[in-house]
Protein backbone atom coordinates (compact mmCIF):
# COMPACT_ATOMS: atom_id res chain seq x y z
CA UNK A 1 0.00 0.00 0.00
CA UNK A 2 1.31 3.43 -0.91
CA UNK A 3 0.50 6.62 0.95
CA UNK A 4 -0.34 9.97 -0.52
CA UNK A 5 -0.13 13.11 1.64
CA UNK A 6 -2.18 16.14 0.60
CA UNK A 7 -1.09 19.51 1.99
CA UNK A 8 -3.68 22.26 1.61
CA UNK A 9 -3.04 25.84 2.71
CA UNK A 10 -6.57 27.14 2.06
CA UNK A 11 -7.99 29.39 4.76
CA UNK A 12 -11.68 29.86 4.10
CA UNK A 13 -14.40 27.24 4.54
CA UNK A 14 -15.24 26.01 2.00
CA UNK A 15 -11.95 26.69 0.31
CA UNK A 16 -11.24 26.47 -3.42
CA UNK A 17 -7.69 25.42 -2.50
CA UNK A 18 -9.05 22.45 -0.57
CA UNK A 19 -11.46 21.73 -3.42
CA UNK A 20 -8.58 21.56 -5.88
CA UNK A 21 -6.57 19.47 -3.41
CA UNK A 22 -9.44 16.98 -3.09
CA UNK A 23 -9.83 16.78 -6.89
CA UNK A 24 -6.11 16.12 -7.29
CA UNK A 25 -6.10 13.54 -4.49
CA UNK A 26 -9.07 11.67 -5.97
CA UNK A 27 -7.55 11.70 -9.46
CA UNK A 28 -4.16 10.52 -8.16
CA UNK A 29 -5.74 7.76 -6.07
CA UNK A 30 -7.70 6.60 -9.12
CA UNK A 31 -4.56 6.66 -11.27
CA UNK A 32 -2.68 4.64 -8.66
CA UNK A 33 -5.46 2.07 -8.51
CA UNK A 34 -5.29 1.79 -12.31
CA UNK A 35 -1.62 0.93 -11.86
CA UNK A 36 -2.46 -1.80 -9.38
CA UNK A 37 -1.94 0.28 -6.24
CA UNK A 38 -4.08 0.63 -3.13
CA UNK A 39 -3.31 4.16 -1.94
CA UNK A 40 -4.10 5.60 1.49
CA UNK A 41 -4.72 9.34 1.39
CA UNK A 42 -3.90 11.61 4.33
CA UNK A 43 -4.92 15.28 4.19
CA UNK A 44 -3.01 17.94 6.12
CA UNK A 45 -5.06 21.15 6.49
CA UNK A 46 -2.48 23.76 7.41
CA UNK A 47 -5.16 26.05 8.84
CA UNK A 48 -5.53 23.56 11.71
CA UNK A 49 -1.84 24.07 12.49
CA UNK A 50 -1.59 27.83 11.98
CA UNK A 51 -0.68 28.68 15.57
CA UNK A 52 1.51 25.62 16.03
CA UNK A 53 3.47 26.66 12.93
CA UNK A 54 4.04 30.17 14.29
CA UNK A 55 5.05 28.66 17.65
CA UNK A 56 7.46 26.33 15.89
CA UNK A 57 9.21 29.35 14.35
CA UNK A 58 9.66 30.81 17.84
CA UNK A 59 10.53 27.67 19.81
CA UNK A 60 12.28 25.55 17.20
CA UNK A 61 10.17 22.45 17.81
CA UNK A 62 6.81 21.12 16.63
CA UNK A 63 3.94 20.44 19.03
CA UNK A 64 2.53 16.94 19.05
CA UNK A 65 -0.30 17.54 16.55
CA UNK A 66 1.94 19.43 14.13
CA UNK A 67 4.47 16.60 14.51
CA UNK A 68 1.73 14.26 13.29
CA UNK A 69 1.20 16.38 10.16
CA UNK A 70 4.95 16.56 9.49
CA UNK A 71 5.31 12.81 9.95
CA UNK A 72 2.42 12.21 7.53
CA UNK A 73 4.27 14.15 4.82
CA UNK A 74 7.67 12.67 5.70
CA UNK A 75 6.34 9.13 5.56
CA UNK A 76 4.31 9.52 2.35
CA UNK A 77 5.33 8.06 -1.01
CA UNK A 78 3.99 11.13 -2.78
CA UNK A 79 2.77 14.60 -1.88
CA UNK A 80 0.20 16.98 -3.33
CA UNK A 81 0.92 20.57 -2.24
CA UNK A 82 -1.73 23.21 -2.88
CA UNK A 83 -1.62 26.87 -1.89
CA UNK A 84 -3.74 29.95 -2.49
CA UNK A 85 -1.87 32.81 -4.13
CA UNK A 86 -1.16 35.66 -1.73
CA UNK A 87 0.65 38.74 -3.03
CA UNK A 88 1.77 36.96 -6.21
CA UNK A 89 3.25 33.91 -4.44
CA UNK A 90 2.47 30.99 -2.13
CA UNK A 91 0.93 32.01 1.19
CA UNK A 92 3.05 32.55 4.30
CA UNK A 93 1.30 29.66 6.01
CA UNK A 94 2.21 27.33 3.15
CA UNK A 95 5.85 28.45 3.18
CA UNK A 96 6.06 28.15 6.97
CA UNK A 97 5.08 24.48 6.83
CA UNK A 98 7.87 23.73 4.38
CA UNK A 99 10.24 25.92 6.43
CA UNK A 100 9.81 23.80 9.56
CA UNK A 101 10.31 20.44 7.83
CA UNK A 102 13.74 18.91 8.35
CA UNK A 103 15.63 19.89 5.24
CA UNK A 104 16.02 16.31 4.00
CA UNK A 105 12.31 15.47 4.31
CA UNK A 106 11.32 15.87 0.68
CA UNK A 107 14.53 14.75 -1.00
CA UNK A 108 13.63 12.51 -3.95
CA UNK A 109 9.94 12.56 -3.09
CA UNK A 110 7.41 12.97 -5.96
CA UNK A 111 5.37 16.14 -5.44
CA UNK A 112 2.46 17.57 -7.41
CA UNK A 113 2.32 21.38 -7.21
CA UNK A 114 -0.94 23.30 -7.47
CA UNK A 115 -2.31 26.75 -6.69
CA UNK A 116 -5.56 28.70 -6.70
CA UNK A 117 -6.07 32.43 -7.14
CA UNK A 118 -8.76 35.04 -7.55
CA UNK A 119 -7.52 35.96 -11.01
CA UNK A 120 -6.01 34.09 -13.95
CA UNK A 121 -3.21 36.67 -14.08
CA UNK A 122 -1.42 34.62 -11.38
CA UNK A 123 -1.41 31.55 -13.59
CA UNK A 124 2.40 31.16 -13.67
CA UNK A 125 2.76 31.16 -9.88
CA UNK A 126 3.34 27.40 -9.85
CA UNK A 127 6.29 27.87 -12.16
CA UNK A 128 7.88 31.04 -10.82
CA UNK A 129 7.27 30.61 -7.08
CA UNK A 130 6.50 27.00 -6.18
CA UNK A 131 8.94 25.16 -8.44
CA UNK A 132 12.07 26.95 -7.17
CA UNK A 133 11.05 26.19 -3.57
CA UNK A 134 10.65 22.47 -4.27
CA UNK A 135 13.79 22.43 -6.39
CA UNK A 136 15.65 23.76 -3.34
CA UNK A 137 14.08 21.02 -1.22
CA UNK A 138 15.25 18.51 -3.86
CA UNK A 139 11.76 17.11 -4.30
CA UNK A 140 10.78 15.67 -7.68
CA UNK A 141 8.04 18.00 -8.90
CA UNK A 142 5.86 16.49 -11.62
CA UNK A 143 6.01 18.33 -14.97
CA UNK A 144 2.39 19.48 -14.93
CA UNK A 145 1.58 22.18 -12.38
CA UNK A 146 -2.11 22.82 -11.81
CA UNK A 147 -3.42 26.34 -11.45
CA UNK A 148 -7.09 27.19 -11.01
CA UNK A 149 -8.73 30.65 -11.24
CA UNK A 150 -12.47 31.36 -10.68
CA UNK A 151 -13.35 30.82 -14.35
CA UNK A 152 -11.92 27.28 -14.19
CA UNK A 153 -14.62 26.25 -11.72
CA UNK A 154 -17.48 27.39 -13.94
CA UNK A 155 -17.62 24.65 -16.59
CA UNK A 156 -19.72 21.51 -16.90
CA UNK A 157 -20.15 19.57 -13.69
CA UNK A 158 -18.48 22.30 -11.64
CA UNK A 159 -15.02 21.86 -13.05
CA UNK A 160 -14.07 23.24 -16.43
CA UNK A 161 -12.96 20.57 -18.87
CA UNK A 162 -9.53 22.17 -19.39
CA UNK A 163 -8.88 22.12 -15.64
CA UNK A 164 -10.13 18.54 -15.38
CA UNK A 165 -7.68 17.57 -18.13
CA UNK A 166 -4.79 19.22 -16.30
CA UNK A 167 -5.78 17.53 -13.03
CA UNK A 168 -5.84 14.11 -14.69
CA UNK A 169 -2.53 14.67 -16.48
CA UNK A 170 -0.78 15.86 -13.29
CA UNK A 171 -2.32 13.01 -11.27
CA UNK A 172 -1.13 10.49 -13.87
CA UNK A 173 2.39 11.90 -13.71
CA UNK A 174 2.42 11.71 -9.91
CA UNK A 175 1.02 8.17 -9.94
CA UNK A 176 3.68 7.09 -12.45
CA UNK A 177 6.45 8.42 -10.23
CA UNK A 178 4.91 6.91 -7.09
CA UNK A 179 4.35 3.54 -8.73
CA UNK A 180 7.95 3.47 -9.92
CA UNK A 181 9.23 4.40 -6.51
CA UNK A 182 10.00 2.04 -3.69
CA UNK A 183 7.83 2.16 -0.58
CA UNK A 184 8.92 4.65 2.09
CA UNK A 185 11.70 3.09 4.18
CA UNK A 186 10.50 1.90 7.58
CA UNK A 187 11.78 3.73 10.69
CA UNK A 188 15.25 2.43 11.48
CA UNK A 189 14.55 2.54 15.23
CA UNK A 190 17.38 3.00 17.73
CA UNK A 191 20.05 3.84 15.24
CA UNK A 192 17.73 6.21 13.43
CA UNK A 193 18.21 9.87 14.28
CA UNK A 194 21.94 9.93 14.92
CA UNK A 195 22.83 6.83 12.96
CA UNK A 196 24.77 8.85 10.42
CA UNK A 197 26.97 10.58 12.98
CA UNK A 198 30.63 10.08 12.06
CA UNK A 199 32.78 8.28 14.63
CA UNK A 200 35.15 10.40 16.64
CA UNK A 201 38.17 9.04 14.79
CA UNK A 202 36.64 10.40 11.58
CA UNK A 203 35.87 13.74 13.26
CA UNK A 204 39.47 14.02 14.48
CA UNK A 205 40.69 13.53 10.93
CA UNK A 206 38.54 16.51 9.97
CA UNK A 207 35.86 14.35 8.32
Amino acid at each position, binding site marked *: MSTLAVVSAGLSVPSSTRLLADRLAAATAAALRERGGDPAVEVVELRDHARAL*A*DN*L*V*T*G*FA*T*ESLRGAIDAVAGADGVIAVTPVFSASYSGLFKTFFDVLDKETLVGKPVLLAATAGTARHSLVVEHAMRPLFAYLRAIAVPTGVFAAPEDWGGDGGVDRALATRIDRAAGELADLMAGRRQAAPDKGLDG*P*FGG*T*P*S*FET*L*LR*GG
Partner: protein
Amino acid sequence: MEFGVFSVSDITTDPTTGRTPSEAERIKAVLAIARKTEEVGLDVFALGEHHNPPFFSSSPTTTLAYIAARTSRLRLSTATTLITTNDPVKIAEDYAMLQHLADGRVDLMLGRGNTGPVYPWFGQDIRNGIPLAIENYALLRKLWDEDVVDWSGKFRTPLQSFTSTPRPLDGVAPFVWHGSIRSPEIAEQAAYYGDGFFHNHIFWPPEHTQRMVEFYRRRFEHYGHGSADQAIVGLGGQVFLRKNSQDAVREFRPYFDNAPVYGHGPSLEEFSRETPLTVGSPQQVIERTLGFRDYVGDYQRQLFLIDHAGLPLKTVLEQLDLLGEEVVPVLRKEFAARRPAHVPDAPTHAARVAAKGGAKDATVYAAADGVTGQVTEEVEVR
Protein backbone atom coordinates in the same frame (compact mmCIF):
# COMPACT_ATOMS: atom_id res chain seq x y z
CA MET B 1 24.06 14.08 42.74
CA GLU B 2 24.71 17.78 42.41
CA PHE B 3 22.14 20.55 42.22
CA GLY B 4 22.71 24.09 41.19
CA VAL B 5 21.76 27.03 39.02
CA PHE B 6 23.07 28.40 35.76
CA SER B 7 22.86 31.92 34.48
CA VAL B 8 23.11 33.17 30.92
CA SER B 9 23.88 36.71 32.19
CA ASP B 10 21.21 38.46 30.14
CA ILE B 11 20.30 42.06 30.85
CA THR B 12 16.59 42.12 30.11
CA THR B 13 13.85 44.63 30.81
CA ASP B 14 11.50 43.55 33.59
CA PRO B 15 8.21 43.38 31.63
CA THR B 16 6.16 44.12 34.75
CA THR B 17 7.89 47.42 35.52
CA GLY B 18 9.54 48.38 32.21
CA ARG B 19 12.80 48.83 34.08
CA THR B 20 16.12 47.57 32.70
CA PRO B 21 19.00 47.02 35.12
CA SER B 22 22.42 48.48 34.34
CA GLU B 23 25.41 46.21 33.72
CA ALA B 24 26.81 47.22 37.09
CA GLU B 25 23.58 46.26 38.81
CA ARG B 26 23.23 42.92 37.01
CA ILE B 27 26.85 41.94 37.63
CA LYS B 28 26.42 42.59 41.37
CA ALA B 29 23.10 40.72 41.28
CA VAL B 30 24.75 37.64 39.79
CA LEU B 31 27.40 37.72 42.53
CA ALA B 32 24.62 37.84 45.11
CA ILE B 33 22.84 34.94 43.41
CA ALA B 34 26.02 32.84 43.44
CA ARG B 35 26.63 33.47 47.15
CA LYS B 36 23.01 32.71 47.92
CA THR B 37 23.32 29.45 45.96
CA GLU B 38 25.92 28.28 48.46
CA GLU B 39 24.06 29.71 51.45
CA VAL B 40 20.87 27.74 50.74
CA GLY B 41 22.81 24.49 50.36
CA LEU B 42 23.01 24.01 46.61
CA ASP B 43 26.21 22.70 45.05
CA VAL B 44 26.90 24.41 41.73
CA PHE B 45 26.84 27.85 40.17
CA ALA B 46 27.50 28.00 36.43
CA LEU B 47 27.84 31.12 34.30
CA GLY B 48 27.56 31.61 30.55
CA GLU B 49 29.98 33.29 28.18
CA HIS B 50 28.77 35.81 25.62
CA HIS B 51 30.41 38.61 23.70
CA ASN B 52 27.48 40.81 22.80
CA PRO B 53 24.64 42.72 24.43
CA PRO B 54 22.26 41.94 26.12
CA PHE B 55 24.76 39.74 27.98
CA PHE B 56 27.50 40.92 30.35
CA SER B 57 29.51 37.75 30.93
CA SER B 58 32.42 38.04 28.51
CA SER B 59 35.02 37.07 31.13
CA PRO B 60 33.63 34.21 33.19
CA THR B 61 36.91 33.28 34.91
CA THR B 62 37.16 36.79 36.40
CA THR B 63 33.63 36.56 37.78
CA LEU B 64 34.06 32.98 38.98
CA ALA B 65 37.36 33.82 40.71
CA TYR B 66 35.61 36.56 42.65
CA ILE B 67 32.83 34.15 43.60
CA ALA B 68 35.41 31.54 44.61
CA ALA B 69 36.92 34.02 47.04
CA ARG B 70 33.51 34.75 48.58
CA THR B 71 32.39 31.13 48.94
CA SER B 72 33.89 28.02 50.48
CA ARG B 73 31.99 25.00 49.22
CA LEU B 74 30.22 26.04 46.02
CA ARG B 75 31.41 24.35 42.80
CA LEU B 76 31.94 26.81 39.96
CA SER B 77 31.32 25.99 36.36
CA THR B 78 30.50 27.58 33.03
CA ALA B 79 27.47 27.31 30.76
CA THR B 80 29.13 27.42 28.35
CA THR B 81 32.79 28.22 27.62
CA LEU B 82 33.19 28.83 23.89
CA ILE B 83 35.54 26.10 22.68
CA THR B 84 35.16 27.34 19.11
CA THR B 85 36.29 30.95 19.33
CA ASN B 86 38.52 30.99 22.43
CA ASP B 87 42.16 30.07 21.96
CA PRO B 88 42.52 26.67 23.64
CA VAL B 89 45.84 27.84 25.08
CA LYS B 90 44.04 30.66 26.88
CA ILE B 91 41.32 28.28 28.11
CA ALA B 92 43.99 25.91 29.46
CA GLU B 93 45.71 28.77 31.28
CA ASP B 94 42.63 30.58 32.57
CA TYR B 95 40.82 27.57 33.96
CA ALA B 96 43.92 26.00 35.51
CA MET B 97 44.52 29.36 37.20
CA LEU B 98 40.92 29.46 38.42
CA GLN B 99 41.24 25.87 39.61
CA HIS B 100 44.18 26.85 41.85
CA LEU B 101 42.44 29.95 43.19
CA ALA B 102 39.25 27.98 43.96
CA ASP B 103 41.04 25.00 45.55
CA GLY B 104 39.74 22.67 42.87
CA ARG B 105 36.09 23.75 43.05
CA VAL B 106 36.04 24.26 39.28
CA ASP B 107 34.84 22.40 36.25
CA LEU B 108 33.79 23.74 32.90
CA MET B 109 31.22 23.11 30.25
CA LEU B 110 32.27 23.55 26.65
CA GLY B 111 29.88 24.71 23.99
CA ARG B 112 29.85 26.28 20.57
CA GLY B 113 27.91 29.41 21.46
CA ASN B 114 24.48 30.56 20.42
CA THR B 115 25.21 33.33 17.97
CA GLY B 116 26.77 33.18 14.51
CA PRO B 117 28.41 36.63 14.47
CA VAL B 118 30.71 35.73 17.40
CA TYR B 119 32.90 33.63 15.07
CA PRO B 120 34.27 36.46 12.89
CA TRP B 121 34.79 38.66 15.97
CA PHE B 122 37.44 36.15 16.98
CA GLY B 123 38.80 35.45 13.52
CA GLN B 124 36.85 32.25 12.93
CA ASP B 125 34.16 31.00 10.57
CA ILE B 126 30.88 29.49 11.80
CA ARG B 127 31.06 26.86 9.06
CA ASN B 128 34.00 25.39 10.98
CA GLY B 129 31.96 25.15 14.21
CA ILE B 130 32.29 21.40 14.71
CA PRO B 131 35.88 21.07 13.41
CA LEU B 132 36.92 23.96 15.72
CA ALA B 133 35.26 22.27 18.71
CA ILE B 134 37.08 19.02 17.85
CA GLU B 135 40.55 20.42 17.20
CA ASN B 136 40.52 23.02 19.99
CA TYR B 137 39.46 20.51 22.60
CA ALA B 138 42.05 17.96 21.46
CA LEU B 139 44.69 20.67 22.02
CA LEU B 140 43.20 21.76 25.36
CA ARG B 141 43.34 18.15 26.57
CA LYS B 142 46.98 17.88 25.49
CA LEU B 143 47.91 21.15 27.19
CA TRP B 144 46.48 19.91 30.50
CA ASP B 145 47.62 16.30 30.26
CA GLU B 146 51.15 16.82 28.93
CA ASP B 147 53.76 19.12 30.47
CA VAL B 148 55.54 19.93 27.22
CA VAL B 149 53.51 20.17 24.06
CA ASP B 150 54.52 20.04 20.41
CA TRP B 151 51.45 20.57 18.31
CA SER B 152 50.22 21.72 14.94
CA GLY B 153 46.68 21.95 13.59
CA LYS B 154 44.46 23.81 11.17
CA PHE B 155 43.09 26.64 13.26
CA ARG B 156 45.95 28.17 15.27
CA THR B 157 49.70 28.65 15.02
CA PRO B 158 51.78 25.57 15.91
CA LEU B 159 53.31 25.12 19.37
CA GLN B 160 56.87 23.96 19.98
CA SER B 161 57.98 22.88 23.46
CA PHE B 162 55.12 24.81 24.99
CA THR B 163 54.13 24.45 28.62
CA SER B 164 50.79 25.85 29.72
CA THR B 165 50.98 27.35 33.21
CA PRO B 166 49.91 26.97 35.91
CA ARG B 167 49.79 23.20 35.62
CA PRO B 168 46.47 21.66 36.74
CA LEU B 169 46.04 21.60 40.52
CA ASP B 170 47.37 18.39 42.08
CA GLY B 171 48.11 17.14 38.55
CA VAL B 172 44.39 16.70 37.78
CA ALA B 173 42.76 19.00 35.23
CA PRO B 174 39.26 20.42 35.76
CA PHE B 175 36.47 18.03 34.83
CA VAL B 176 34.94 18.85 31.45
CA TRP B 177 31.32 18.70 30.36
CA HIS B 178 30.39 19.06 26.72
CA GLY B 179 27.12 20.87 26.18
CA SER B 180 25.04 20.59 23.05
CA ILE B 181 21.36 20.86 22.28
CA ARG B 182 21.29 19.34 18.83
CA SER B 183 24.71 18.16 17.63
CA PRO B 184 25.37 14.42 18.02
CA GLU B 185 29.02 15.11 17.10
CA ILE B 186 29.44 16.83 20.48
CA ALA B 187 27.83 13.90 22.33
CA GLU B 188 30.25 11.66 20.39
CA GLN B 189 33.16 13.87 21.47
CA ALA B 190 32.12 13.70 25.14
CA ALA B 191 31.81 9.92 24.88
CA TYR B 192 35.20 9.51 23.18
CA TYR B 193 37.03 11.28 26.00
CA GLY B 194 34.86 9.84 28.77
CA ASP B 195 33.90 13.41 29.72
CA GLY B 196 30.48 14.56 30.90
CA PHE B 197 27.61 15.43 28.58
CA PHE B 198 25.23 18.24 29.47
CA HIS B 199 21.92 18.85 27.77
CA ASN B 200 20.32 22.26 28.15
CA HIS B 201 16.91 20.55 28.45
CA ILE B 202 15.00 23.81 28.38
CA PHE B 203 13.89 24.70 24.93
CA TRP B 204 12.79 21.42 23.38
CA PRO B 205 10.61 18.44 24.27
CA PRO B 206 12.11 15.77 26.55
CA GLU B 207 12.17 13.14 23.76
CA HIS B 208 14.89 15.17 22.11
CA THR B 209 17.05 15.22 25.25
CA GLN B 210 16.38 11.54 25.74
CA ARG B 211 17.69 10.66 22.26
CA MET B 212 20.86 12.72 22.67
CA VAL B 213 21.64 11.33 26.14
CA GLU B 214 20.95 7.77 25.00
CA PHE B 215 23.33 8.25 22.08
CA TYR B 216 26.04 9.66 24.38
CA ARG B 217 25.64 6.81 26.86
CA ARG B 218 25.85 4.16 24.15
CA ARG B 219 29.02 5.73 22.67
CA PHE B 220 30.55 6.18 26.18
CA GLU B 221 30.29 2.43 26.61
CA HIS B 222 31.62 1.84 23.07
CA TYR B 223 34.80 3.76 23.91
CA GLY B 224 35.36 1.62 26.99
CA HIS B 225 34.84 4.14 29.79
CA GLY B 226 32.28 1.99 31.59
CA SER B 227 28.75 0.82 31.04
CA ALA B 228 26.23 3.17 29.45
CA ASP B 229 24.53 3.87 32.77
CA GLN B 230 27.87 4.99 34.24
CA ALA B 231 28.28 7.86 31.78
CA ILE B 232 28.28 11.33 33.37
CA VAL B 233 25.12 13.22 32.47
CA GLY B 234 24.01 16.72 33.40
CA LEU B 235 20.68 18.35 32.66
CA GLY B 236 19.37 21.87 32.63
CA GLY B 237 15.84 22.73 33.53
CA GLN B 238 13.72 25.77 34.07
CA VAL B 239 11.54 26.36 37.11
CA PHE B 240 9.57 29.11 38.81
CA LEU B 241 8.19 28.38 42.24
CA ARG B 242 5.81 29.82 44.77
CA LYS B 243 4.31 28.02 47.74
CA ASN B 244 1.03 28.13 45.89
CA SER B 245 0.93 26.93 42.30
CA GLN B 246 -1.53 29.61 41.07
CA ASP B 247 0.69 32.38 42.47
CA ALA B 248 3.66 30.96 40.58
CA VAL B 249 1.77 30.91 37.28
CA ARG B 250 0.34 34.41 37.75
CA GLU B 251 3.67 35.94 38.70
CA PHE B 252 5.79 34.18 36.05
CA ARG B 253 3.43 34.62 33.09
CA PRO B 254 4.56 38.12 32.00
CA TYR B 255 8.21 37.04 32.17
CA PHE B 256 7.39 33.95 30.13
CA ASP B 257 5.29 35.82 27.56
CA ASN B 258 8.08 38.35 26.94
CA ALA B 259 11.10 36.08 27.35
CA PRO B 260 13.73 36.83 24.68
CA VAL B 261 14.20 33.23 23.55
CA TYR B 262 10.72 31.71 23.38
CA GLY B 263 8.34 34.59 24.22
CA HIS B 264 5.52 35.72 21.94
CA GLY B 265 4.95 32.14 20.85
CA PRO B 266 3.21 29.31 22.72
CA SER B 267 1.33 29.91 25.95
CA LEU B 268 2.92 29.17 29.32
CA GLU B 269 0.62 26.18 29.64
CA GLU B 270 1.54 24.78 26.21
CA PHE B 271 5.26 25.29 26.76
CA SER B 272 5.01 23.66 30.20
CA ARG B 273 3.33 20.66 28.62
CA GLU B 274 5.74 20.30 25.71
CA THR B 275 9.05 21.10 27.46
CA PRO B 276 10.51 20.49 30.95
CA LEU B 277 9.51 24.01 32.12
CA THR B 278 7.78 23.75 35.49
CA VAL B 279 5.94 26.70 37.01
CA GLY B 280 4.22 25.78 40.24
CA SER B 281 4.60 24.67 43.83
CA PRO B 282 7.71 23.05 45.32
CA GLN B 283 5.91 19.71 45.23
CA GLN B 284 5.22 20.07 41.49
CA VAL B 285 8.87 20.91 40.82
CA ILE B 286 9.97 17.89 42.86
CA GLU B 287 7.68 15.52 40.95
CA ARG B 288 8.60 16.84 37.52
CA THR B 289 12.33 16.81 38.26
CA LEU B 290 12.27 13.25 39.60
CA GLY B 291 10.57 12.33 36.33
CA PHE B 292 13.64 13.42 34.31
CA ARG B 293 15.32 10.25 35.53
CA ASP B 294 12.68 8.18 33.72
CA TYR B 295 14.01 9.22 30.33
CA VAL B 296 17.72 9.98 30.84
CA GLY B 297 18.53 7.41 33.54
CA ASP B 298 20.41 8.15 36.76
CA TYR B 299 22.35 11.33 36.25
CA GLN B 300 24.89 13.41 38.08
CA ARG B 301 24.06 17.08 37.84
CA GLN B 302 20.86 19.11 37.71
CA LEU B 303 21.11 22.83 37.00
CA PHE B 304 18.08 25.11 37.09
CA LEU B 305 17.66 28.32 35.14
CA ILE B 306 16.01 30.77 37.53
CA ASP B 307 17.73 34.03 36.67
CA HIS B 308 16.73 35.46 33.31
CA ALA B 309 14.05 37.29 31.31
CA GLY B 310 14.16 40.34 33.56
CA LEU B 311 13.27 38.63 36.85
CA PRO B 312 14.29 40.98 39.68
CA LEU B 313 17.05 39.94 42.09
CA LYS B 314 14.67 39.74 45.04
CA THR B 315 12.51 37.20 43.19
CA VAL B 316 15.52 35.13 42.13
CA LEU B 317 16.79 34.98 45.72
CA GLU B 318 13.32 33.84 46.84
CA GLN B 319 13.49 31.09 44.23
CA LEU B 320 16.79 29.96 45.74
CA ASP B 321 15.24 29.93 49.22
CA LEU B 322 12.45 27.67 47.99
CA LEU B 323 14.85 25.40 46.11
CA GLY B 324 17.19 25.16 49.10
CA GLU B 325 14.53 24.69 51.76
CA GLU B 326 11.84 22.64 50.11
CA VAL B 327 12.96 21.15 46.79
CA VAL B 328 16.60 20.10 46.74
CA PRO B 329 16.69 18.26 50.10
CA VAL B 330 13.85 16.03 48.89
CA LEU B 331 15.43 15.56 45.44
CA ARG B 332 18.77 14.62 47.01
CA LYS B 333 17.16 11.98 49.14
CA GLU B 334 14.89 10.58 46.43
CA PHE B 335 17.52 10.49 43.66
CA ALA B 336 20.05 8.87 46.02
CA ALA B 337 17.52 6.21 47.01
CA ARG B 338 16.91 5.35 43.36
CA ARG B 339 20.54 5.32 42.19
CA PRO B 340 22.18 1.86 41.95
CA ALA B 341 25.58 1.53 43.64
CA HIS B 342 27.53 1.09 40.40
CA VAL B 343 26.39 4.46 39.01
CA PRO B 344 29.02 7.06 39.88
CA ASP B 345 28.29 10.23 41.82
CA ALA B 346 29.07 13.65 40.34
CA PRO B 347 32.82 14.03 39.74
CA THR B 348 34.64 16.20 42.29
CA HIS B 349 38.25 17.30 42.34
CA ALA B 350 38.96 15.40 45.57
CA ALA B 351 37.50 12.18 44.19
CA ARG B 352 39.36 12.50 40.90
CA VAL B 353 42.65 13.20 42.70
CA ALA B 354 42.09 10.15 44.90
CA ALA B 355 41.34 8.04 41.82
CA LYS B 356 44.71 9.08 40.40
CA GLY B 357 46.54 7.91 43.50
CA GLY B 358 46.65 11.20 45.37
CA ALA B 359 47.73 14.77 44.85
CA LYS B 360 51.04 15.53 43.21
CA ASP B 361 52.88 18.73 42.62
CA ALA B 362 52.50 19.23 38.89
CA THR B 363 54.71 22.29 38.67
CA VAL B 364 57.07 22.29 35.71
CA TYR B 365 60.21 23.81 37.20
CA ALA B 366 62.07 25.57 34.45
CA ALA B 367 65.76 24.92 34.05
CA ALA B 368 65.89 28.32 32.43
CA ASP B 369 67.23 31.70 33.40
CA GLY B 370 64.25 33.47 34.92
CA VAL B 371 64.98 36.72 33.12
CA THR B 372 66.20 35.76 29.67
CA GLY B 373 64.45 32.41 29.36
CA GLN B 374 67.70 30.80 28.18
CA VAL B 375 68.38 27.23 29.22
CA THR B 376 71.63 26.77 31.14
CA GLU B 377 73.00 23.88 29.06
CA GLU B 378 72.41 25.72 25.84
CA VAL B 379 74.34 28.71 27.13
CA GLU B 380 77.23 26.47 28.16
CA VAL B 381 77.37 24.75 24.78
CA ARG B 382 77.80 28.07 23.06
